[in-house]
């Protein structure tokens, strides 16, 4: 946990020209090693990750990005002979493709098991599906399910690694990881606040730049992030609040009171109903999709009123800190929670988030699946 506080000098950009005292290097190394030792067996929710484990995943993603940057063959042999099952009970082409690409780039055999349309009470039970996958020898199951807790249930029935790709209104931990990865790229390191990733998701990690080394081992300490929108139903918000907090960021969630859960006071974040006030000087604004269907539950009177109160337009965009970024997990409701000029404008990292998603999911699969059979804490 101390690595972030102590890293600035230890991870200075000039490290290769500097003589690092052995003991100092060893301390730093021990912090980083602990993160790897703290990696969980399954990734169900963001709280499965200690700060160290989360940083280990982000660092690994940076290294993977380095390893395949600019290559003709963007494939690694790491998970050759392993089977990764994408078990999707909900329609989510984006997430499924991202996981599929991640697994394939690590040379895993990928099976897409789409159970969409089968409501929880109809068809084969989750348990029977799990037992089937177990007997087929799935090394990892990536599950998307409309019921909160379904991935957790799966861990009772399957020996392989379970990765939660979004469960109900619970969590979506790999989305939070890719968001944290994107935030760190833009906000941490020598060019903090600058355009560290001007090159986009592929990253400029050649011998020309050293900015990756600036970020390795570091969290998001002191960075201010607002998460705006349907917090009540958002698994992205739940995962991000937990993860960004454990990485040292200061998170404020912003929504009309009807879209905030009762009990949110226990979350490690601030809560605001007032977008303009909350926006001032923050380093990143993460906009969540608001579904028109929510109007059926009378969560807000009209889309127009929602947009007036909680939509990110150019006027509000100007309230952010210099160098701040605008994020959206997608798919966007242009004109609803985010104005097109903001979505396509300066500091928008929406497409970069998608690219980073593949890299981060590769890191998760490598770290959780490659050493399968090893003792874990």
């Amino acid at each position, binding site marked *: 946990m101390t690595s972030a506080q102590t890293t600035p000098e230890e991870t200075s950009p000039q490290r290769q020209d500097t003589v690092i005292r052995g003991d100092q290097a060893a301390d730093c190394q021990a912090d980083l090693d602990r993160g790897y030792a703290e990696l969980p067996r399954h990734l169900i929710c963001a709280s499965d990750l200690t700060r160290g484990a989360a940083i280990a995943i982000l660092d690994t993603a940076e290294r993977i990005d380095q390893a395949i940057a600019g290559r003709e063959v963007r494939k690694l042999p790491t998970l050759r002979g392993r089977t990764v099952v994408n078990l999707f009970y909900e329609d989510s082409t984006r997430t499924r493709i991202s996981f599929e690409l991640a697994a394939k780039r690590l040379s895993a055999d990928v099976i897409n098991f789409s159970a969409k349309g089968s409501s929880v009470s109809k068809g084969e039970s989750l*348990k029977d599906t799990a037992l089937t996958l177990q007997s087929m020898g799935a090394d990892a199951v990536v599950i998307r399910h409309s019921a909160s807790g379904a991935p957790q*249930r799966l861990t009772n029935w399957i020996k392989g690694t379970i990765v939660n790709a979004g469960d*109900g*209104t*619970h969590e979506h931990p790999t989305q939070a990881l890719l968001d944290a990865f994107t935030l760190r790229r833009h906000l941490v390191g020598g060019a903090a606040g600058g355009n560290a990733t001007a090159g986009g998701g592929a990253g400029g990690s050649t011998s020309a730049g050293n900015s990756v080394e600036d970020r390795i081992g570091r969290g998001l300490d002191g960075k201010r992030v607002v998460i705006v929108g349907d917090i009540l139903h958002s*698994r992205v918000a739940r995962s991000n609040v937990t993860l960004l907090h454990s990485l040292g960021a200061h998170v404020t969630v912003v929504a009309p009171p009807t879209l905030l859960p009762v*009990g949110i006071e226990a979350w490690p974040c601030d809560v605001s109903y007032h977008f303009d006030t909350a926006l001032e000087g923050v380093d990143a604004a993460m906009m969540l999709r608001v579904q028109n269907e929510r109007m059926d539950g009378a969560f807000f009177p009209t889309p127009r009123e929602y947009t007036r109160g909680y939509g990110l337009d150019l006027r509000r965009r100007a309230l952010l800190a210099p160098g701040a970024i605008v994020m959206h997990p997608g798919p966007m409701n242009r004109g609803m929670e985010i104005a097109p000029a903001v979505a396509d404008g300066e500091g928008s990292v929406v497409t970069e988030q998608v690219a980073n998603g593949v890299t981060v999911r590769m890191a998760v699969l490598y770290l959780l699946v490659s050493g399968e059979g090893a003792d874990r804490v």
Partner: protein
Amino acid sequence: MTEFVSGQAQSASGQAQSAFRQAHSDIEHELPAVAPLLIRGAAPYGEDAVDVLLADGEIVAIGTDVVNHPAADGAEVIAGAGLILLPGLVDLHAHLREPGGEDAETVASGSASAALGGYTAIFAMPNTEPTADTAGVVEQVLRLGHEVGLVDVQPIGAVTVGRRGTQLAELAAMASSAARVTIFSDDGHCVADPLLMRRALEYVKAFNGVIAQHAEEPRLTVGAQMHEGVVSARLGLGGWPAVAEEAIVARDCLLAEHVGSHLHMCHVSTAGSAELIAAAKARGTHVTAEVTPHHLLLTDSAAEGYDPVNKVTPPLRPQVDVDALRRALADGVIDVVATDHAPHARQDKETEWAAAKPGMLGLETALSVVVAAMVETELLDWRGVARVMSENPARIGSLTDHGRPIAVGEPANLVLIDPVARWTVHAAEMASLSQNTPFDGMELPAQVVHTFLRGRATVRDGVIAGGAL
């Protein structure tokens, strides 16, 4: 069995004859003669140890020289030293699933669970298939209970047809049937329509009926999965707010007061409900209330891990509610501990949380849970346990031969409890056909050793007595 009736009738205080004695006399059912039983050295209500002699279905002698009683000659002796003697327990709220849900429970398996839990009488909720909303169905349940013979099974009738909450069922017909139904409930559903609830409360006054309400404002629990609070916010499970219960408790207390009827609140689960009931009682409203064992011991944090064995309606609540419910039970604001024994087949629990059916087993663990929550915490003594688990439920359910004092001339419906034993709950070893107990693997205090129904052992040494079935 009928030969016990006359003796008991005298001890029942001028009330109309109980449904059971009526029922029993309606159904031809001769039991073999039961040898007298002499319980040596047991402690009624945990007080001074005495000998108790049971013969002809009654307590015929109590004291220290009972061995000299004529009926003691040839009596079978039961060692009672170290055991506590209570009146047989009475459960106002059990789901026996028969007819229609026999893969989860039957009247036979539920009766066995009840006897092992120290019960001599249980009330069967009407959410069966078909619904117990006619005289025919309630009589069927009564008959099934009778044939099993391990406990007295008293049917509860539905308030509305099919428990759909739109039209009153034929309440008077059920009341005047062989089952002599006195409690009506749509349990599992709330009688949400305030006008229909008012009519039901009024209507049952004609036959001293009770409306047992499942308090849940349905519009406030759309998509609800667990208590709405800190844990639900983290787990992303739909919230079941306390106010959904309390709004109905408040409304129905006011309705019961207005029409002067007897309202019984099922499975009260929140501190707010307890306060509302206390206030209504203080105003003189005829309201009684029950709490389940699980609401006295478990909290909403049990939902962590998403094992649906912990999913129940109303949901498990935070510790502040648990503490308030324990106090309310100790203070008499809540009258009764009722199990809400709700067996579910495995396929209905081995699922995602949202897909699972709500409910928990209760009959075999209730006494131990009450001891853990109330006796070991010194909130109740054993007389208090007898009051909330036997006397009060029998009174509310108009069972005149259960929940009686331990005294000469009273029916020999009794339970002997080892108060110092500790045991570990094993779901797979339950007499219930289902295994959905949230207490699986937990070590609990106090164990039922023997249960006697009208002087006949239904449970001996912790197992169903030979010949009892």
